[in-house]
């Protein structure tokens, strides 16, 4: 805080070592809640079905029925697991019935969008921090741009891009970019401005150029903000990729799976795609977190 001594490093929560048992415990708890939820939410329909057959169900048959419906309100975990198994392990990964295939489609546009989005986000933040007139004139419009509901303009974006013969991965990546650059911009504007005044003064005494100050002080100083923003950004990017799969004809990718599952009322399929998307997101966020720790260690800021 008042920097009479070299600003000490950021102390971070411990890594994932020994995370297995806690994660397992939390997952088990989650699954238990899920089963209970499945019972509660599916019960009314099951009751109706029994009533139609004029049987008075006992608790066990109720439980069995709620956990094995063909079109449940909330499918039971094992149903989703079975579907996941069926659509990943039991399919060739090149098959369009394979979730791995669809996951890959979504992942590729997520990654492209995230890369562009992060670069754009940092670039905008750098511009806003360094050019005074941009902070006042551009920043409000960056904010306004984020209030435009993407799903509303996504079709228009896709139509326009299609019209100029940009198809395939790129239109989806554009939507991902659109969603992911903003958290990065906001975080980095803060991060690039967070160095101590004293540290900035030091650069001034060296008469360092803005560029040098950026590389040697602002950027290293913004690392905690950068990675936090990137975690949010990569998640947003995935959301963008999935959303963008709808107006591009929803032919492949997890978004298309979600939608067609939804359209045909195949709840189990929806949940399988949802779980797949979540796992993908968690994996991406975890990777960004791991890179974060690696960078912090390389910078000598980890204790």
């Amino acid at each position, binding site marked *: 805080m008042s920097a009479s001594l070299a600003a000490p490093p950021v102390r971070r929560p411990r890594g994932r070592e020994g995370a297995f048992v806690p994660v397992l415990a939390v997952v088990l708890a989650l699954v238990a809640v899920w089963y209970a939820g499945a019972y509660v939410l599916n019960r009314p329909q099951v009751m109706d079905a029994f009533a139609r057959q004029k049987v008075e169900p006992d608790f066990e048959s109720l439980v069995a029925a709620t956990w094995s419906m063909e079109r449940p309100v909330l499918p039971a975990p094992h149903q989703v697991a079975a579907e996941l198994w069926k659509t990943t392990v039991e399919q060739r990964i090149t098959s369009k019935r394979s979730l791995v295939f669809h996951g890959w489609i979504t992942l590729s546009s997520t990654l492209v969008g995230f890369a562009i989005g992060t670069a754009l986000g940092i670039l905008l933040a750098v511009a806003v921090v360094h050019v005074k007139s941009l902070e006042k004139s551009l920043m409000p419009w960056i904010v306004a741009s984020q209030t435009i509901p993407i799903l509303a303009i996504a079709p228009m974006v896709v139509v326009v891009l299609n019209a100029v013969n940009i198809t395939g991965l790129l239109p989806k990546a554009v939507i991902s970019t659109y969603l992911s650059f903003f958290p990065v911009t906001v975080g980095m504007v803060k991060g690039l401005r967070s160095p101590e005044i004293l540290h900035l003064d030091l650069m001034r005494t060296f008469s360092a150029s803005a560029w040098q100050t950026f590389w040697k002080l602002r950027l290293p100083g913004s690392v905690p903000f950068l990675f936090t923003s990137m975690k949010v950004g990569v998640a947003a990017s995935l959301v963008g990729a999935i959303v963008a799969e*709808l107006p591009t004809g929803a032919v492949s990718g997890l978004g*298309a799976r979600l939608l067609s599952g939804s*359209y*045909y009322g195949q709840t189990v399929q929806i949940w399988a795609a949802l779980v797949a998307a979540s796992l993908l997101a968690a994996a991406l966020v975890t990777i960004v977190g791991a890179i974060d720790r690696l960078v912090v260690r390389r910078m000598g800021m980890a204790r």
Partner: protein
Amino acid sequence: ADALTLQLKWVTQAQFAGYYVAKDKGFYEEEGLDVTIKPGGPDIAPEQVIAGGGADVITTWMPAALASREKGVPLVNIAQPFKTSGLMLTCRKETGIASPADFKGKTLGVWFFGNEYPFLAWMAKLGLPTTGGADGVTVVKQGFNVDPLLQKQADCISTMTYNEYWQVIDGGIPESELVVFKYEDQGVATLEDGLYVLEDKLADPAFVDKLARFVKASMKGWAYAREHTEEAAKIVLDNDETGAQTEKHQLRMMGEINKLTEGSTGKLDEADYKRTVATLLSAGGEDPVITKEPQGAWTHAVTDKAGIE
């Protein structure tokens, strides 16, 4: 071969079997055409796609096409493979609805996005305000599925004979507990899946010729689909890139779709057109679908050229 892009109104399914069959069986190729079929989806407005130059031909419902025409997208119907409307309102019997007179005070699920016009026309005809309250009906925007009915969140929902209706059945509600109102039976049917192009492009005889070959091959595809239901369903399934469709579902849909294309040569029946326009004009309200009789919204030039009687 001449390139042509067709934008569908919805995702790949048996509803568009004719086109997929024509493509797979080489009917387009025979006519010297290289047709690209773009699946649609929610929030894809084919009208917007064609205006943006993303397609040469689109399939859409006539009310939406006519509305777009008033908004400055000069769509022209060049062919009408669907003769009969498949739209209906499906209600649970236990809500006490037996006839349209019982709608008062009920909650009805409706598809918007340009699909609401037939419903609005019907309600206008019944004299039911759609703004809720005891004397009108409460309208909710229905999503992609039939959950509102299964969850009892709505008393009636919109269904297509070929798709959502069967999802309700699959959802565990037997036909005996359902009441259905077909728009066709209520006298408010409007023309569904037709083929539309932009008016100015019809000035080019080469384009008309291309369209004629396209329509001819497409109608051949529809005819083939009617005769080979199972094969057609299989073709649709093969073309579904999401890999989410099931054979059972597409086969059943194919059967229902065939009932709707039955009796169409592809040539638009002027009487059907007039009835659709009349229905839409009757809808009225503060934000009418169309305000006046459309001019030049259809042509027989293409079907004539294709030699369709």
